[in-house]
Protein backbone atom coordinates (compact mmCIF):
# COMPACT_ATOMS: atom_id res chain seq x y z
CA UNK A 1 0.00 0.00 0.00
CA UNK A 2 2.55 2.58 1.01
CA UNK A 3 4.85 3.23 -1.84
CA UNK A 4 8.60 3.08 -2.00
CA UNK A 5 10.74 6.12 -1.22
CA UNK A 6 8.77 8.95 -2.74
CA UNK A 7 8.81 12.67 -3.21
CA UNK A 8 5.36 12.98 -1.72
CA UNK A 9 4.53 14.80 1.48
CA UNK A 10 2.26 13.67 4.29
CA UNK A 11 -0.99 15.50 4.96
CA UNK A 12 -2.50 15.75 8.43
CA UNK A 13 -5.92 17.05 9.32
CA UNK A 14 -6.49 17.21 13.06
CA UNK A 15 -10.02 17.83 14.32
CA UNK A 16 -10.71 20.17 11.49
CA UNK A 17 -13.95 22.16 11.41
CA UNK A 18 -15.08 24.72 8.89
CA UNK A 19 -18.09 26.97 9.17
CA UNK A 20 -19.08 29.42 6.47
CA UNK A 21 -21.27 32.35 7.30
CA UNK A 22 -24.22 33.10 5.09
CA UNK A 23 -26.48 36.12 5.08
CA UNK A 24 -28.22 37.45 8.17
CA UNK A 25 -26.11 35.70 10.75
CA UNK A 26 -26.93 32.27 9.34
CA UNK A 27 -24.04 29.89 8.82
CA UNK A 28 -23.25 26.50 7.31
CA UNK A 29 -21.08 24.04 9.09
CA UNK A 30 -19.40 22.41 6.12
CA UNK A 31 -16.91 20.21 7.97
CA UNK A 32 -16.88 19.10 11.61
CA UNK A 33 -14.10 17.55 13.67
CA UNK A 34 -12.50 15.80 10.73
CA UNK A 35 -9.23 13.98 11.37
CA UNK A 36 -7.29 12.26 8.66
CA UNK A 37 -3.68 11.27 8.13
CA UNK A 38 -2.46 10.75 4.65
CA UNK A 39 0.93 9.16 4.23
CA UNK A 40 3.66 10.35 2.03
CA UNK A 41 2.99 8.87 -1.40
CA UNK A 42 -0.45 7.61 -0.50
CA UNK A 43 -3.39 7.78 -2.89
CA UNK A 44 -6.61 8.60 -1.05
CA UNK A 45 -10.01 8.88 -2.66
CA UNK A 46 -12.62 11.06 -0.99
CA UNK A 47 -16.24 10.25 -1.63
CA UNK A 48 -19.44 11.52 -0.12
CA UNK A 49 -22.77 13.11 -0.91
CA UNK A 50 -22.92 16.33 -2.86
CA UNK A 51 -22.35 19.33 -0.62
CA UNK A 52 -20.77 17.32 2.18
CA UNK A 53 -17.55 19.30 2.25
CA UNK A 54 -15.19 17.40 -0.03
CA UNK A 55 -14.09 20.47 -1.97
CA UNK A 56 -13.81 22.36 1.28
CA UNK A 57 -11.39 19.75 2.65
CA UNK A 58 -9.33 19.97 -0.52
CA UNK A 59 -9.35 23.76 -0.38
CA UNK A 60 -8.10 23.69 3.20
CA UNK A 61 -5.27 21.36 2.25
CA UNK A 62 -4.46 23.71 -0.62
CA UNK A 63 -4.42 26.67 1.78
CA UNK A 64 -7.35 28.28 -0.04
CA UNK A 65 -9.62 28.17 2.99
CA UNK A 66 -8.52 28.36 6.60
CA UNK A 67 -10.17 25.90 8.99
CA UNK A 68 -12.42 27.43 11.62
CA UNK A 69 -11.05 24.96 14.14
CA UNK A 70 -8.40 22.26 14.20
CA UNK A 71 -5.19 22.15 12.24
CA UNK A 72 -4.07 21.20 8.77
CA UNK A 73 -0.45 20.47 7.96
CA UNK A 74 1.12 19.44 4.71
CA UNK A 75 4.65 18.10 4.85
CA UNK A 76 4.53 19.10 8.54
CA UNK A 77 4.20 22.71 7.54
CA UNK A 78 1.40 25.16 7.12
CA UNK A 79 -0.55 24.27 3.99
CA UNK A 80 0.58 27.42 2.17
CA UNK A 81 4.25 26.46 2.29
CA UNK A 82 4.01 23.66 -0.22
CA UNK A 83 2.15 25.84 -2.69
CA UNK A 84 4.74 28.57 -2.25
CA UNK A 85 7.40 26.04 -3.25
CA UNK A 86 5.43 25.10 -6.37
CA UNK A 87 5.13 21.55 -5.11
CA UNK A 88 1.35 21.42 -5.19
CA UNK A 89 -0.82 20.31 -8.08
CA UNK A 90 -4.53 21.00 -8.05
CA UNK A 91 -7.30 20.29 -10.55
CA UNK A 92 -10.27 22.38 -9.50
CA UNK A 93 -13.87 21.33 -9.79
CA UNK A 94 -14.49 24.33 -12.08
CA UNK A 95 -11.23 23.91 -14.04
CA UNK A 96 -10.00 27.48 -13.42
CA UNK A 97 -8.32 27.86 -16.77
CA UNK A 98 -7.06 31.29 -17.73
CA UNK A 99 -9.74 32.40 -20.19
CA UNK A 100 -7.36 34.57 -22.18
CA UNK A 101 -4.69 31.88 -22.68
CA UNK A 102 -4.48 29.06 -25.16
CA UNK A 103 -4.32 25.44 -24.08
CA UNK A 104 -0.56 25.50 -24.50
CA UNK A 105 -0.16 28.63 -22.45
CA UNK A 106 -2.41 27.33 -19.74
CA UNK A 107 -0.18 24.30 -19.50
CA UNK A 108 2.96 26.43 -19.49
CA UNK A 109 1.67 28.60 -16.66
CA UNK A 110 2.97 26.44 -13.79
CA UNK A 111 6.48 26.57 -15.25
CA UNK A 112 6.36 30.30 -15.63
CA UNK A 113 5.06 30.88 -12.15
CA UNK A 114 7.75 28.58 -10.77
CA UNK A 115 10.36 30.39 -12.86
CA UNK A 116 11.41 27.20 -14.50
CA UNK A 117 12.18 26.82 -18.18
CA UNK A 118 9.05 25.68 -20.00
CA UNK A 119 9.44 22.05 -21.00
CA UNK A 120 7.81 22.07 -24.43
CA UNK A 121 8.32 18.38 -24.92
CA UNK A 122 6.46 17.59 -21.73
CA UNK A 123 3.62 19.91 -22.62
CA UNK A 124 3.34 18.34 -26.03
CA UNK A 125 3.29 14.89 -24.46
CA UNK A 126 0.57 15.95 -22.07
CA UNK A 127 -1.48 17.43 -24.91
CA UNK A 128 -1.27 14.09 -26.64
CA UNK A 129 -2.13 12.31 -23.41
CA UNK A 130 -5.33 14.28 -22.98
CA UNK A 131 -6.17 14.01 -26.67
CA UNK A 132 -6.04 17.68 -27.49
CA UNK A 133 -3.56 17.59 -30.35
CA UNK A 134 -4.80 20.21 -32.81
CA UNK A 135 -6.28 22.37 -30.06
CA UNK A 136 -2.98 23.70 -28.68
CA UNK A 137 -3.85 27.23 -29.67
CA UNK A 138 -7.54 27.09 -28.83
CA UNK A 139 -8.76 29.18 -25.94
CA UNK A 140 -10.90 27.66 -23.17
CA UNK A 141 -14.15 29.02 -24.54
CA UNK A 142 -13.45 27.17 -27.78
CA UNK A 143 -13.26 23.84 -25.98
CA UNK A 144 -15.96 21.45 -24.91
CA UNK A 145 -16.61 20.93 -21.21
CA UNK A 146 -14.70 17.67 -21.12
CA UNK A 147 -11.79 19.14 -23.08
CA UNK A 148 -11.45 21.92 -20.53
CA UNK A 149 -11.43 19.44 -17.72
CA UNK A 150 -8.67 17.49 -19.40
CA UNK A 151 -6.53 20.59 -19.70
CA UNK A 152 -7.06 21.21 -16.02
CA UNK A 153 -5.91 17.68 -15.17
CA UNK A 154 -2.83 18.02 -17.33
CA UNK A 155 -1.98 21.32 -15.72
CA UNK A 156 -2.17 19.81 -12.25
CA UNK A 157 0.53 17.25 -13.03
CA UNK A 158 2.70 19.18 -15.41
CA UNK A 159 5.25 20.12 -12.72
CA UNK A 160 5.25 16.68 -11.08
CA UNK A 161 4.05 17.99 -7.74
CA UNK A 162 4.62 16.41 -4.33
CA UNK A 163 0.96 16.63 -3.46
CA UNK A 164 -1.78 16.23 -6.02
CA UNK A 165 -5.33 17.35 -5.25
CA UNK A 166 -7.95 16.36 -7.80
CA UNK A 167 -11.52 17.60 -7.39
CA UNK A 168 -13.75 15.43 -9.58
CA UNK A 169 -11.30 15.67 -12.43
CA UNK A 170 -13.13 13.21 -14.65
CA UNK A 171 -16.70 14.34 -14.00
CA UNK A 172 -17.31 15.80 -17.44
CA UNK A 173 -15.77 12.93 -19.40
CA UNK A 174 -17.43 10.08 -21.19
CA UNK A 175 -16.90 6.63 -19.74
CA UNK A 176 -14.28 5.61 -22.28
CA UNK A 177 -12.12 8.68 -22.04
CA UNK A 178 -12.57 8.53 -18.28
CA UNK A 179 -11.30 4.99 -18.01
CA UNK A 180 -8.44 5.74 -20.31
CA UNK A 181 -7.38 8.71 -18.23
CA UNK A 182 -7.90 6.67 -15.05
CA UNK A 183 -5.38 4.25 -16.45
CA UNK A 184 -2.98 7.01 -17.38
CA UNK A 185 -3.25 8.55 -13.93
CA UNK A 186 -2.48 5.21 -12.33
CA UNK A 187 0.50 4.75 -14.60
CA UNK A 188 1.83 8.18 -13.85
CA UNK A 189 1.27 7.78 -10.15
CA UNK A 190 2.95 4.36 -10.04
CA UNK A 191 5.98 5.69 -11.82
CA UNK A 192 6.23 8.44 -9.27
CA UNK A 193 3.86 7.91 -6.35
CA UNK A 194 3.10 11.31 -4.90
CA UNK A 195 0.57 11.99 -2.19
CA UNK A 196 -2.74 12.24 -3.98
CA UNK A 197 -6.24 13.14 -2.84
CA UNK A 198 -8.93 12.45 -5.39
CA UNK A 199 -12.50 13.61 -4.91
CA UNK A 200 -14.84 11.53 -7.00
CA UNK A 201 -18.45 10.47 -7.26
CA UNK A 202 -17.54 7.28 -8.99
CA UNK A 203 -17.05 4.43 -6.55
CA UNK A 204 -15.42 2.24 -9.22
CA UNK A 205 -12.94 4.95 -9.95
CA UNK A 206 -12.14 5.36 -6.26
CA UNK A 207 -11.50 1.66 -5.87
CA UNK A 208 -9.54 1.43 -9.07
CA UNK A 209 -7.15 4.21 -8.18
CA UNK A 210 -6.87 4.65 -4.43
CA UNK A 211 -4.93 3.00 -1.64
CA UNK A 212 -7.66 4.08 0.75
CA UNK A 213 -11.17 5.34 0.20
CA UNK A 214 -12.50 7.79 2.75
CA UNK A 215 -16.24 8.24 2.90
CA UNK A 216 -17.53 11.53 4.26
CA UNK A 217 -20.89 11.89 5.93
CA UNK A 218 -23.39 14.49 4.74
CA UNK A 219 -22.86 18.04 5.91
CA UNK A 220 -21.21 18.66 8.30
CA UNK A 221 -18.63 16.40 6.70
CA UNK A 222 -16.96 13.91 9.04
CA UNK A 223 -15.10 10.72 8.28
CA UNK A 224 -17.78 8.07 8.19
CA UNK A 225 -15.81 5.13 6.84
CA UNK A 226 -12.30 4.40 5.73
CA UNK A 227 -11.64 1.49 3.43
CA UNK A 228 -8.26 0.04 2.56
CA UNK A 229 -8.25 -1.10 -1.04
CA UNK A 230 -6.59 -4.51 -1.17
CA UNK A 231 -5.95 -4.91 -4.90
CA UNK A 232 -2.44 -5.14 -6.22
CA UNK A 233 -1.23 -2.67 -8.77
CA UNK A 234 -1.29 -2.12 -11.62
CA UNK A 235 -5.05 -2.49 -11.47
CA UNK A 236 -6.60 -3.08 -14.84
CA UNK A 237 -10.19 -3.07 -15.95
CA UNK A 238 -10.02 -6.79 -15.26
CA UNK A 239 -9.93 -6.16 -11.53
CA UNK A 240 -13.15 -4.20 -11.75
CA UNK A 241 -14.91 -7.33 -12.92
CA UNK A 242 -13.83 -9.49 -9.99
CA UNK A 243 -16.35 -10.37 -7.27
CA UNK A 244 -14.09 -8.84 -4.61
CA UNK A 245 -14.24 -5.55 -6.42
CA UNK A 246 -18.01 -5.73 -6.75
CA UNK A 247 -18.26 -6.52 -3.11
CA UNK A 248 -16.36 -3.41 -2.16
CA UNK A 249 -18.34 -1.32 -4.62
CA UNK A 250 -21.52 -2.56 -3.02
CA UNK A 251 -20.16 -1.93 0.45
CA UNK A 252 -19.29 1.67 -0.36
CA UNK A 253 -22.51 2.27 -2.28
CA UNK A 254 -24.51 0.95 0.62
CA UNK A 255 -22.63 3.21 3.00
CA UNK A 256 -23.33 6.23 0.80
CA UNK A 257 -26.94 5.20 0.51
CA UNK A 258 -27.34 4.95 4.26
CA UNK A 259 -25.61 8.28 4.75
CA UNK A 260 -27.81 10.01 2.20
CA UNK A 261 -30.96 8.52 3.57
CA UNK A 262 -29.96 9.59 7.06
CA UNK A 263 -29.51 13.15 5.96
CA UNK A 264 -32.80 13.20 4.07
CA UNK A 265 -31.09 14.98 1.20
Amino acid at each position, binding site marked *: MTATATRGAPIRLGGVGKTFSLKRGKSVEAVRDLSLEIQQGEFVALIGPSGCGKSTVLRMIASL*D*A*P*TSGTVTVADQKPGELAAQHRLGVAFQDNALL*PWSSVRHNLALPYKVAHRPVDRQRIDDLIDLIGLRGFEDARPKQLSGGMRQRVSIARSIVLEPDVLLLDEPFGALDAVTRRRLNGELQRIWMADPVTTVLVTHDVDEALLLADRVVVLSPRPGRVSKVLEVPFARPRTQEVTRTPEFHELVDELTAELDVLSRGSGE
Partner: protein
Amino acid sequence: MTVMSQSAVQEAREQDVVDRALPPSRGTGRRLRRAGAAVVHAVWPLIALFGAWALWVRAGDVPPAVAPKPGTVLEFLAENAGSFVGDALNTLAVVVGGLVVGAVAGVVLAALSWTSQIARAVINGPALLTQCLPVATITPVLARLFGYGVSTIVVITALISFFPVLVFAATGLRQTPAGADDLFVVLGAGRWTRFWRLAVPSAVPRVLVAMRVSVVAAVAGTMLAQWVMGTSGLGYRLIIAQTSFRTAEAWASSVVSIVLSVLLFAVVSAICRVVEKRFS
Protein backbone atom coordinates in the same frame (compact mmCIF):
# COMPACT_ATOMS: atom_id res chain seq x y z
CA MET B 1 -17.20 35.91 -14.86
CA THR B 2 -17.63 36.39 -11.17
CA VAL B 3 -15.53 39.38 -10.52
CA MET B 4 -14.26 38.96 -7.03
CA SER B 5 -11.68 41.46 -6.16
CA GLN B 6 -8.58 39.73 -4.95
CA SER B 7 -8.36 42.34 -2.28
CA ALA B 8 -11.65 41.04 -0.97
CA VAL B 9 -10.37 37.51 -1.16
CA GLN B 10 -7.22 38.49 0.59
CA GLU B 11 -9.02 40.52 3.19
CA ALA B 12 -11.33 37.63 3.83
CA ARG B 13 -8.37 35.37 4.17
CA GLU B 14 -6.48 37.71 6.41
CA GLN B 15 -9.64 37.98 8.42
CA ASP B 16 -9.74 34.23 8.75
CA VAL B 17 -6.23 34.23 10.04
CA VAL B 18 -7.00 36.97 12.53
CA ASP B 19 -10.11 35.12 13.63
CA ARG B 20 -8.09 32.04 14.32
CA ALA B 21 -5.27 33.81 16.05
CA LEU B 22 -7.50 35.70 18.43
CA PRO B 23 -10.08 34.10 20.65
CA PRO B 24 -13.50 35.81 20.55
CA SER B 25 -13.02 37.33 24.00
CA ARG B 26 -10.37 39.64 22.61
CA GLY B 27 -12.80 41.19 20.17
CA THR B 28 -12.48 44.70 21.49
CA GLY B 29 -8.73 44.58 21.27
CA ARG B 30 -8.98 43.52 17.67
CA ARG B 31 -11.43 46.27 16.90
CA LEU B 32 -9.15 48.81 18.54
CA ARG B 33 -6.20 47.57 16.57
CA ARG B 34 -8.17 47.76 13.35
CA ALA B 35 -9.32 51.28 14.16
CA GLY B 36 -5.70 52.17 14.84
CA ALA B 37 -4.66 50.83 11.46
CA ALA B 38 -7.42 52.83 9.80
CA VAL B 39 -6.18 55.98 11.47
CA VAL B 40 -2.62 55.29 10.33
CA HIS B 41 -3.84 54.72 6.77
CA ALA B 42 -5.81 57.95 6.87
CA VAL B 43 -3.09 60.06 8.38
CA TRP B 44 0.22 59.15 6.78
CA PRO B 45 -0.53 60.70 3.40
CA LEU B 46 -1.55 63.94 5.06
CA ILE B 47 1.58 64.04 7.17
CA ALA B 48 3.70 63.21 4.13
CA LEU B 49 2.02 65.88 2.09
CA PHE B 50 2.20 68.64 4.66
CA GLY B 51 5.77 67.66 5.43
CA ALA B 52 6.76 67.91 1.78
CA TRP B 53 4.97 71.23 1.48
CA ALA B 54 6.63 72.67 4.56
CA LEU B 55 10.03 71.47 3.46
CA TRP B 56 9.60 72.84 -0.05
CA VAL B 57 8.47 76.27 1.14
CA ARG B 58 11.30 76.46 3.64
CA ALA B 59 14.13 75.05 1.56
CA GLY B 60 13.11 76.80 -1.64
CA ASP B 61 12.43 80.09 0.13
CA VAL B 62 9.15 80.12 -1.79
CA PRO B 63 7.39 83.51 -1.78
CA PRO B 64 3.81 83.57 -0.46
CA ALA B 65 2.39 84.33 -3.92
CA VAL B 66 3.55 80.88 -4.99
CA ALA B 67 2.79 78.95 -1.85
CA PRO B 68 2.26 80.11 1.72
CA LYS B 69 3.67 78.20 4.68
CA PRO B 70 1.46 75.30 5.70
CA GLY B 71 1.51 76.68 9.22
CA THR B 72 -0.04 79.95 8.07
CA VAL B 73 -2.78 78.13 6.21
CA LEU B 74 -3.54 75.76 9.07
CA GLU B 75 -3.58 78.66 11.48
CA PHE B 76 -6.02 80.50 9.29
CA LEU B 77 -8.14 77.37 9.06
CA ALA B 78 -8.14 76.91 12.80
CA GLU B 79 -9.06 80.50 13.46
CA ASN B 80 -11.83 80.61 10.87
CA ALA B 81 -13.00 77.02 11.06
CA GLY B 82 -16.57 78.10 11.67
CA SER B 83 -16.72 80.27 8.61
CA PHE B 84 -15.64 77.39 6.38
CA VAL B 85 -18.42 75.11 7.57
CA GLY B 86 -21.08 77.04 5.70
CA ASP B 87 -19.03 77.23 2.53
CA ALA B 88 -18.16 73.57 2.72
CA LEU B 89 -21.81 72.61 3.19
CA ASN B 90 -22.78 74.83 0.30
CA THR B 91 -20.22 73.18 -1.96
CA LEU B 92 -21.14 69.75 -0.65
CA ALA B 93 -24.79 70.31 -1.50
CA VAL B 94 -23.91 71.32 -5.05
CA VAL B 95 -21.53 68.37 -5.41
CA VAL B 96 -24.13 65.90 -4.26
CA GLY B 97 -26.80 67.47 -6.44
CA GLY B 98 -24.58 67.56 -9.51
CA LEU B 99 -23.26 64.07 -8.88
CA VAL B 100 -26.75 62.62 -8.59
CA VAL B 101 -27.90 64.39 -11.74
CA GLY B 102 -24.69 63.38 -13.53
CA ALA B 103 -24.76 59.76 -12.42
CA VAL B 104 -28.40 59.39 -13.39
CA ALA B 105 -27.78 61.06 -16.74
CA GLY B 106 -24.73 58.84 -17.31
CA VAL B 107 -26.66 55.69 -16.52
CA VAL B 108 -29.64 56.72 -18.64
CA LEU B 109 -27.44 57.58 -21.61
CA ALA B 110 -25.53 54.33 -21.18
CA ALA B 111 -28.86 52.51 -21.15
CA LEU B 112 -29.89 54.27 -24.33
CA SER B 113 -26.61 53.48 -26.00
CA TRP B 114 -27.12 49.85 -24.99
CA THR B 115 -30.30 49.69 -27.03
CA SER B 116 -28.74 50.23 -30.44
CA GLN B 117 -25.58 50.99 -32.28
CA ILE B 118 -27.21 54.12 -33.71
CA ALA B 119 -28.07 55.42 -30.28
CA ARG B 120 -24.56 54.69 -29.11
CA ALA B 121 -23.03 56.65 -31.95
CA VAL B 122 -25.45 59.53 -31.60
CA ILE B 123 -24.74 59.77 -27.87
CA ASN B 124 -20.98 59.29 -27.92
CA GLY B 125 -20.11 62.26 -30.14
CA PRO B 126 -21.99 64.96 -28.23
CA ALA B 127 -20.99 63.42 -24.90
CA LEU B 128 -17.37 63.69 -25.91
CA LEU B 129 -17.99 67.26 -27.01
CA THR B 130 -18.96 68.23 -23.47
CA GLN B 131 -15.78 66.69 -22.07
CA CYS B 132 -12.95 68.17 -24.04
CA LEU B 133 -13.84 71.84 -23.57
CA PRO B 134 -12.74 73.95 -20.63
CA VAL B 135 -15.53 74.98 -18.30
CA ALA B 136 -14.88 78.66 -18.95
CA THR B 137 -15.54 78.13 -22.64
CA ILE B 138 -18.96 76.63 -22.25
CA THR B 139 -20.10 78.66 -19.27
CA PRO B 140 -21.60 81.53 -21.31
CA VAL B 141 -23.72 79.13 -23.34
CA LEU B 142 -24.80 77.19 -20.28
CA ALA B 143 -25.56 80.35 -18.35
CA ARG B 144 -27.82 81.39 -21.18
CA LEU B 145 -29.68 78.10 -20.82
CA PHE B 146 -29.77 77.72 -17.07
CA GLY B 147 -29.27 81.22 -15.76
CA TYR B 148 -26.45 82.80 -13.81
CA GLY B 149 -27.36 81.04 -10.61
CA VAL B 150 -26.68 77.81 -8.81
CA SER B 151 -28.47 75.68 -11.39
CA THR B 152 -25.72 76.28 -13.93
CA ILE B 153 -23.15 75.28 -11.35
CA VAL B 154 -25.05 72.08 -10.70
CA VAL B 155 -25.24 71.49 -14.44
CA ILE B 156 -21.49 71.98 -14.84
CA THR B 157 -20.87 69.55 -11.99
CA ALA B 158 -23.23 67.08 -13.59
CA LEU B 159 -21.56 67.51 -16.98
CA ILE B 160 -18.21 66.74 -15.47
CA SER B 161 -19.38 63.73 -13.50
CA PHE B 162 -21.68 62.06 -16.01
CA PHE B 163 -19.01 61.04 -18.48
CA PRO B 164 -17.12 58.44 -16.45
CA VAL B 165 -20.46 56.90 -15.52
CA LEU B 166 -21.56 56.85 -19.16
CA VAL B 167 -18.34 55.27 -20.37
CA PHE B 168 -18.02 52.65 -17.65
CA ALA B 169 -21.73 51.84 -17.55
CA ALA B 170 -21.90 51.48 -21.33
CA THR B 171 -19.09 48.91 -21.27
CA GLY B 172 -20.39 47.33 -18.10
CA LEU B 173 -23.80 46.70 -19.61
CA ARG B 174 -22.10 44.50 -22.18
CA GLN B 175 -19.84 42.68 -19.69
CA THR B 176 -22.27 39.93 -18.82
CA PRO B 177 -21.10 36.84 -16.93
CA ALA B 178 -20.23 33.78 -19.00
CA GLY B 179 -23.26 31.83 -20.09
CA ALA B 180 -25.77 34.41 -18.92
CA ASP B 181 -26.47 35.71 -22.41
CA ASP B 182 -27.25 32.20 -23.56
CA LEU B 183 -29.48 31.69 -20.58
CA PHE B 184 -31.54 34.74 -21.42
CA VAL B 185 -31.87 33.72 -25.04
CA VAL B 186 -33.11 30.33 -23.99
CA LEU B 187 -35.57 31.81 -21.52
CA GLY B 188 -36.96 33.92 -24.35
CA ALA B 189 -36.16 37.16 -22.59
CA GLY B 190 -37.28 40.35 -24.30
CA ARG B 191 -35.00 43.34 -24.63
CA TRP B 192 -36.39 44.99 -21.58
CA THR B 193 -36.00 41.94 -19.38
CA ARG B 194 -32.53 41.37 -20.66
CA PHE B 195 -31.70 44.93 -19.82
CA TRP B 196 -33.04 44.93 -16.28
CA ARG B 197 -32.22 41.44 -15.21
CA LEU B 198 -28.94 40.89 -17.00
CA ALA B 199 -27.27 44.02 -18.31
CA VAL B 200 -27.91 46.22 -15.30
CA PRO B 201 -26.59 43.85 -12.63
CA SER B 202 -23.62 43.07 -14.87
CA ALA B 203 -22.79 46.76 -15.15
CA VAL B 204 -22.70 47.34 -11.43
CA PRO B 205 -19.00 46.61 -10.84
CA ARG B 206 -17.97 48.97 -13.64
CA VAL B 207 -20.36 51.69 -12.52
CA LEU B 208 -18.78 51.49 -9.09
CA VAL B 209 -15.40 52.19 -10.63
CA ALA B 210 -16.95 55.16 -12.40
CA MET B 211 -18.54 56.47 -9.23
CA ARG B 212 -15.16 56.67 -7.55
CA VAL B 213 -13.86 58.74 -10.43
CA SER B 214 -16.99 60.83 -10.68
CA VAL B 215 -17.25 61.82 -7.05
CA VAL B 216 -13.81 63.35 -7.10
CA ALA B 217 -14.44 64.93 -10.49
CA ALA B 218 -17.67 66.36 -9.15
CA VAL B 219 -15.90 68.18 -6.32
CA ALA B 220 -13.35 69.55 -8.75
CA GLY B 221 -16.16 70.52 -11.12
CA THR B 222 -18.13 72.35 -8.47
CA MET B 223 -15.03 74.17 -7.30
CA LEU B 224 -14.25 75.19 -10.86
CA ALA B 225 -17.81 76.30 -11.59
CA GLN B 226 -18.06 78.30 -8.38
CA TRP B 227 -14.68 79.74 -9.16
CA VAL B 228 -15.80 80.82 -12.62
CA MET B 229 -19.34 81.91 -11.87
CA GLY B 230 -20.41 81.14 -8.32
CA THR B 231 -21.75 83.54 -5.76
CA SER B 232 -21.13 81.29 -2.76
CA GLY B 233 -19.29 78.18 -1.69
CA LEU B 234 -15.66 77.20 -1.41
CA GLY B 235 -14.82 77.85 -5.04
CA TYR B 236 -16.23 81.35 -4.77
CA ARG B 237 -14.31 81.97 -1.60
CA LEU B 238 -11.18 80.78 -3.34
CA ILE B 239 -11.47 83.18 -6.27
CA ILE B 240 -12.34 86.15 -4.07
CA ALA B 241 -9.47 85.45 -1.70
CA GLN B 242 -7.17 84.97 -4.65
CA THR B 243 -8.04 88.18 -6.41
CA SER B 244 -7.65 89.98 -3.10
CA PHE B 245 -4.31 88.32 -2.46
CA ARG B 246 -5.47 86.77 0.76
CA THR B 247 -3.23 83.83 0.08
CA ALA B 248 -3.77 81.98 3.34
CA GLU B 249 -7.52 82.13 2.90
CA ALA B 250 -7.29 81.00 -0.71
CA TRP B 251 -5.19 78.02 0.24
CA ALA B 252 -7.39 77.25 3.20
CA SER B 253 -10.37 77.10 0.84
CA SER B 254 -8.48 74.69 -1.38
CA VAL B 255 -7.49 72.56 1.58
CA VAL B 256 -11.11 72.35 2.72
CA SER B 257 -12.21 71.34 -0.77
CA ILE B 258 -9.52 68.68 -0.89
CA VAL B 259 -10.63 67.33 2.47
CA LEU B 260 -14.16 67.24 1.14
CA SER B 261 -12.97 65.24 -1.86
CA VAL B 262 -11.08 62.78 0.27
CA LEU B 263 -14.05 62.28 2.58
CA LEU B 264 -16.51 61.82 -0.25
CA PHE B 265 -14.14 59.42 -1.98
CA ALA B 266 -13.88 57.40 1.22
CA VAL B 267 -17.66 57.33 1.61
CA VAL B 268 -18.23 56.28 -1.99
CA SER B 269 -15.47 53.67 -1.76
CA ALA B 270 -17.08 52.22 1.34
CA ILE B 271 -20.45 52.04 -0.40
CA CYS B 272 -18.73 50.48 -3.40
CA ARG B 273 -17.18 47.78 -1.25
CA VAL B 274 -20.56 46.83 0.16
CA VAL B 275 -22.29 46.80 -3.23
CA GLU B 276 -19.36 45.00 -4.86
CA LYS B 277 -19.66 42.14 -2.41
CA ARG B 278 -23.30 41.87 -3.31
CA PHE B 279 -22.74 41.74 -7.04
CA SER B 280 -19.62 39.63 -7.43
